[in-house]
């Protein structure tokens, strides 16, 4: 199988965040100048009193802790079966309570709109009828699952868990890079990073009041339970469906199941019984009401989707449509991750929420539109061009990094199938310092906050997962290419 659920490996590799030749990026600790920005004031003061050797030792301890705990991801297909660690940097990324509040409002608005959008797309399709989003965008999209048409999941929730990828370019300048409405991963790193920081630097947390994230598993459980089908009664049974121990994100699956107190199941533990999905226990079969699945749509039900799938549960779609199980996230929710849909997100938010989008989208040219295509062809050297449904950097052009010949070859492809592409400008990503031999050095970061959706409301874990490009000048935060993570702090008021 193809593991899409790749720990915290980014599906994109941020090519638009091309390092500009311009020397200054917005640094979240020092801003544009030499002054320490307010959120970092106390931390910076503390840091300047620390002994570098001690921090170095702490850093190594953290690594040993991660290894011992098995917080690793498997890279299979490599001769070296050694499991890999995602490097952890001990300097936190800090957000002030005000800037976070604004971000959180924006995320909440966006996620609510995404849910309304997905529901609409699988039901009345008002947004298509209104002509706000072109039909072709849905009709020709593999992430659109006809089997979801005319069905509303329990609680009317499609994206129970969302990861909204954000980047920053200035003081108040946040952009949404992409929405992850399938099965966003990385939340276990958010939680473990905080645990590690608490163990390493307890004194910091008594000095600086940071909003806790440790409620996440409890909130996840509560949120999933609130989405259970009516038949579940007051104490719904929740299980996490994993592809198994060889999946690269298995650690996260077992971690979340453990933290939620939910069973961690594989497809072969489950079957249809008495109108429900049931798991095989030592004492017979026991009903599952909510399945937090960490496998792709295509593998979910061999009776409905890929018949070769060994990971899924045959008949689960029948039980689902009969209203007797909740699948989180809903099959077909991935339609919202599409890059062309992304370009319509400001319209989508306005359509469903009746207000302007709070968070900015990265400006996106849809090459299917003639004027846009002309602009893109004229400015190819400054743009990043991506395939609409592609992921993982296939078939994309990074204008500033490409040779003239490459650009010309790509222009041909663009002219041949313009509707297949979008283009975006390059962004100058903010930096946050990391700890190096002799102190601090700025590195580019992004942010993935984790959002829970239930009929009771939208809950955002304060902060999220900060990914950092550890190589100087690099803009690739991808863990498979030298990216690391940081603890992310949101300060109390």
């Amino acid at each position, binding site marked *: 199988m193809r593991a899409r659920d790749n720990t915290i490996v980014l599906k994109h590799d941020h090519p638009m965040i091309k390092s500009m030749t311009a020397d200054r990026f917005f640094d979240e600790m020092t801003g544009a100048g030499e002054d320490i920005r307010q959120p970092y004031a106390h931390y910076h003061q503390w840091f300047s009193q620390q002994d570098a050797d001690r921090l170095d030792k702490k850093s190594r301890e953290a690594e040993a802790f991660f290894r011992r705990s098995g917080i690793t991801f498997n890279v299979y297909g490599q001769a070296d079966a050694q499991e890999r660690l995602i490097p952890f940097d001990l300097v936190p990324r800090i957000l002030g309570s005000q800037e976070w509040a604004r971000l959180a409002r924006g995320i909440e608005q966006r996620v609510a709109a995404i849910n309304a959008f997905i529901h609409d797309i699988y039901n009345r399709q008002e947004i298509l009828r209104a002509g706000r989003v072109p039909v072709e965008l849905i009709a020709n999209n593999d992430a659109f699952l006809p089997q979801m048409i005319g069905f509303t999941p329990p609680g009317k929730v499609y994206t129970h868990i969302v990861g909204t990828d954000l980047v920053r370019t200035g003081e108040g300048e946040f952009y949404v890079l992409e929405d992850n409405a399938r099965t966003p991963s990385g939340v276990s790193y958010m939680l473990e990073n905080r645990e590690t920081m608490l163990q390493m630097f307890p004194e910091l947390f008594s000095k600086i009041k940071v909003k806790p994230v440790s409620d996440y598993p409890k909130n996840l459980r509560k949120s999933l339970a609130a989405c259970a089908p009516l038949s579940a009664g007051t104490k719904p049974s929740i299980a996490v469906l994993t592809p198994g121990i060889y999946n690269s994100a298995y650690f996260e699956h077992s971690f979340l199941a453990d933290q939620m107190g939910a069973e961690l199941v594989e497809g072969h533990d489950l079957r249809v019984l008495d109108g429900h999905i049931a798991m095989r226990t030592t004492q017979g079969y026991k009903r599952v009401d909510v399945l937090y699945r960490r496998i792709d749509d295509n593998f979910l039900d061999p*009776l409905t989707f890929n018949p070769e799938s060994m990971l899924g549960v045959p*008949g689960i779609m029948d039980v689902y449509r009969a209203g007797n199980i909740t699948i989180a996230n809903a099959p077909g929710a991935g339609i919202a991750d599409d890059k062309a849909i992304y370009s319509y997100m400001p319209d989508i938010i306005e359509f469903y929420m009746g207000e302007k989008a709070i968070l900015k989208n990265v400006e996106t040219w849809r090459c299917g539109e003639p004027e846009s295509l002309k602009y893109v062809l004229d400015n190819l050297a400054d743009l990043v061009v991506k395939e609409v449904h592609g992921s993982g950097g296939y078939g994309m052009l990074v204008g500033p990094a490409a040779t003239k010949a490459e650009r010309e070859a790509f222009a041909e492809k663009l002219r041949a199938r313009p509707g297949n592409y979008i283009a975006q400008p390059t962004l100058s990503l903010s930096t946050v310092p990391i700890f190096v031999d002799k102190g601090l050095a700025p590195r580019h970061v992004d942010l993935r906050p984790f959002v829970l959706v239930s009929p009771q409301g939208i809950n955002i874990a304060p902060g999220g997962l900060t990914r950092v490009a550890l190589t100087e000048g690099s803009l690739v935060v991808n863990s498979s290419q030298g990216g690391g993570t940081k603890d992310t702090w949101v300060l109390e008021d």
Partner: protein
Amino acid sequence: MQLTISHTTIYTYETPVHYALQRVRLTPTDTTQQKVHSWSLSVEGGVQEAQYLDHNRNLTHLVNVDQGGTEVRLTATGTVTTMDTAGILGHMTGPAPLWLYKRETALTEAGDTIRDIAAPLRGSTDMLAALHDLSARIAEAVEYGTGQTWAQTTAEEALAGGRGVCQDHAQIFIAAARLAGVPARYVSGYLMMDDRTEQDAGHAWAEAHLPSLGWVGFDVSNGQSPDERYVRIASGRDYTDAAPISGLRQGEGDERMIVTLQVQQ
């Protein structure tokens, strides 16, 4: 016309079943062409696990074959009054948008032979006539006969092979109509053959959507539009969507299927 139908499908398994599911679409619903008076679906050797309307608004059942069993028997039986509407089902709306029926599927993906047979549809001013003509040309190009095609044969393969059954005829029609931008869908159901009570198998035909008439049926195999001898059971983008029974089984050994079908007045 009042038709009485009794349709039994028996699966026998060489070795006792460990775990097997059957998804069953064998329940007709009321349309402009038919009214269902009574209908029942009974299962012997298994239990019904779920019942729902699927994305094409087909009433669908999931059946779990009894563990350790070697036979499951699915019987659909009932009485339906049918009306001759000259093949016109009309503007029956389901949950799915019309554009869904313009999308290619794995079984209806067009290749060169489909493109050729669909060519005259392009720019046609009388699409209804053009579709009837298409139906006739398909029947001519693909001789009716069993043995050469199976459930997963694509429209393109069947047309190139020149021999097939009603499923192939319907899917070729659908693939060609979609090429011309006409929404089209697959229908499974029953046809009472005038000269006999015992029918060989269930029937399949196609429906195309025309703005003026709504859905119109085309039975390519019989060169006509469905009349009062037809009972419509399920529909979808292709056979996979509308198949009367599709299943999945864990375990070894062969399985055999026996169908008995009676449609009578």
